[in-house]
């Protein structure tokens, strides 16, 4: 008997369900992944659909339905920045090593520079611009603790911090470190970043 050990985050972690399966059956317009079992997907998907040209992408960015024309090779990052004018996420290494491009994709923290936009059809993208910035927020804590200098890495750090705190409202300083280890700051603001995360954990609880 299969003892299904694993179901990580509550709700629809993107790989708990099939992604993109709705797309294959549909037109060149990419719609959301159907939540279906593997068998259903197989049955509904006898052949595959090839996208070779510019196509229309629909996705939800910061709660708003957005549409734009992309090529299959467009990364989510370049799509956000160049096509949708969502410029909180930055392009820095463009190779999954610095975290400046970090966004939340269907609830998961990911690098948007190494995610194809075309595989995000119908998904929910949240970027730093959509976060609460009130007195109990992570961005506010960054300001209060001076966790930024030039600020170019900051959207990525704020995003990583927020997701870390969403999962672990009571982090130790080492857990904060691990939570933001996918981000690099060249100005050297880590001390403020760590303090900010701990402070945000406190005020968010107080709120």
């Amino acid at each position, binding site marked *: 008997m299969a003892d299904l050990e694993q179901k990580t985050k509550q709700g629809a972690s993107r790989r708990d369900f099939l992604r993109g399966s709705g797309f294959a059956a549909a037109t060149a317009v990419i719609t959301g992944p159907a939540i279906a079992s593997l068998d259903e997907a197989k049955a509904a998907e006898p052949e595959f659909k090839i996208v070779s040209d510019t196509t229309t992408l629909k996705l939800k960015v910061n709660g708003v339905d957005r549409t734009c024309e992309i*090529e299959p*090779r*467009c990364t989510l990052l*370049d799509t956000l*920045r*160049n096509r949708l*004018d969502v*410029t*909180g*996420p*930055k*392009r*820095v*290494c*463009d*190779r999954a*090593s*610095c975290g*400046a491009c970090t966004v939340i994709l269907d609830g998961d923290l990911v690098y948007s520079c190494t995610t194809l936009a075309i595989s995000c059809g119908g998904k929910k993208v949240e*970027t*730093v*611009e959509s*976060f609460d*910035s009130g007195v109990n927020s*992570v*961005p*506010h804590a*960054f*300001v*209060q603790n*001076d*966790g*930024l*200098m*030039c*600020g*170019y*890495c*900051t*959207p990525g750090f*704020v995003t990583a911090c927020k997701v870390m705190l969403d999962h672990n409202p009571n982090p130790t300083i*080492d857990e*904060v*470190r*691990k939570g*933001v*280890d*996918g*981000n*690099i*700051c*060249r*100005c*050297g*603001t*880590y*001390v*403020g*970043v*760590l303090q900010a995360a701990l402070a945000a954990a406190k005020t968010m609880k107080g709120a």
Partner: protein
Amino acid sequence: MPSVWPENPRLIGTRITRLDGLVKATGKAKYPSDMHPEGMLFGAMLYSPHAHAKIKSIDLAPAERMPGVKAVMIVGAIKPGSTLRFQGDDIAAVAAETEEQAWDAVLAIKVEYEVLPHVVTEAQAVAPGAASVFKGTGIVNNQKKARSQTNGDPEKALGAPGVVSIEANYMAPVITHVCLEPHGLTVRFVGEDKIEAWASTQAVGVTAGDLAGAFGIPTTNVTVHTEVMGGGFGSKFGADIWGITAAHLSKKAGGRPVKMFLDRAHEHLGAGNRPSAIAHVKLGASKDGKLVSLIAETSGTGGAGSGSNFPLPYVYAVPNSSRTHTDIFVNGGNARAMRAPGHPQGCIVMEAAMDDLADKLGIDPLEFRLKNLKERDMVEDGFSKPTVDRTPMYLDEVAMGADLIGWKAKWKPRGKNGDGPIRRGLGMALHQWGGGGPATNQVACTINPDGSVEMKSATQDIGTGARTIFAIIAAEVLGLNVTDITSNIGNSTFPPGQPSGGSTTTPAMSPPAFNAAILARDELFVKVAPGLNAKPEDLTLADGQVCVKGEPKLPWKDACRKLGQQSIQVTGKSSPGLASQHGGVGGCQFAEVSVDIETGVVRVKKIVAIQDTGLIIDKMTWETQVYGGVIGGLNYGLFEERVMDPTVGIMLNPDMELYKLAGASDIPEIVVRAYETPAMKARGVIGVGEPPTVSTAAAIGNAVSNAIGVRVPHWPMSPKNVLDALASKEGKA
């Protein structure tokens, strides 16, 4: 009459959060690379894949035919026959409707190269028969010797009876700036002769001048905006070939704006670096620990043309010394100023030798250092002659630092740090820097009838909190809150402001800001005094009120309303008495490390940084800068290294993965303290961006040697370098 800073400041020197913090932290700040003016095209550069090559032919036509392409051009003076001197040297550029199309077009440009022999490492460059990077007077075998500097008779002093000496080699590699926002700009050519640009620059004025110069138009026809920018560290002072090229592309494309930012590899290759340092050093002292002689032969590479010199002797008094420095040229990108240019290298070499000699003498290296301080500061800041006697300052600072790291209790001689796999060690280093700023800048202050206040100047914020500094100063003078002030900077058409380099921005801009606020205040007093039946000189400002002889009489807003239709507009200039009259700052740093001698892995446990910088305007952003400097130094000490391949002449790690930079888990406890005595405050404002990054790598290297009992001569303190050093000790034993 010389101006003086307020004696009992309300805001200056306190902890004030930065004004533009929230717009940055919410991702809403628009960086130059975020700009997307209507109709914008995407630019991309073609750069040399070879370390050294001649262009035989170049054909742009295939690129011009590609979909979406609006303009293609050869860069600068490149033409068939031109020589490319390093991987990353610029060749051509494209502007297209989408970025993907621009890359495709770059690939479509056909260039035929004649690949020439290259040299990319120092060893390769100086080998007999090495290929020549370029010809020039005084360059032999890719080397240019600087005039040697000699004081006294170092050879004789070193050989004198009773002198204890060491002879050693130290090496620090080339590192690159890795600004997170790449170099570049978004630019629009307007009409026949106007340019508007959003540039990631440390100097809006210089960038405007570069663009104007490139097109032969007046600088007044160019507007450069830099609201915010993503880091420069000394490498972003002008429009650069990339910005000028983008402006040409915009012009070619009928004035459509062009965005041109380098990719990460190009950034490593062509946008600047800190030169390497290679040193052969003999250092000698009397048995009781007084330095007598230094003989240093040093070299380093700053790429295909830039120099590589660094200060040496450094900090300490050496009565007899000789120093010869040789610039080595390689087929690599050129050096640019990088956070305290030269000093980190000088500090590594001097402080490593100091530690090695102290060990040989059997003297506590802390005591040894204090015995050999110079009486007069050696650093000249370029603006004024240093007249400060640093010795008592260093003594105080070292005492503070030693206390905070627990030197007395924890320090043990080299090799006496236990026998398990994990060894602890302590190290220290001293540093100095110029700072200060020129008196050539201006700040405009406007008080409007609605009570709003604006401070304005063509300087920019590179992360140092320039906006906040203006606001603090104005609020201090006008009795307002910092958030009541609007600071407008980052526009080249504003009154002339300081380029952000050499730790000069705050010291250069604070005095004219102070002066502007005072002039504006005094004008307001003149306007409102009659209505209050008082003389202007009886008026003061406090807590948002105009006071007559100390009594609050009129709220700020009401006072301003009395201006009627007319705002107060004044321009402040630098006035004597406020800043940088005595440049030259210094400090010391201590590092505690643990080294796993079985793996060579070094972990920094704690760093203590003591820094003097005159009068501190914002304690919070000041501390952040010191933390940042220390972390930059930690990267230099532990991780960073440009790795070149000798055979094919390319950089092997032009990324952010194998070009290693600290992440949060690499950051130790860092204790920062300002050395801030009344005498220090009286010196006025002196900058802090650079000094605290100078001595960290040296202190870490010394701590590692202290922990493992042997000098690791090569920076960074990587497992390879540590294990190699341990193995060579065993080999000798």
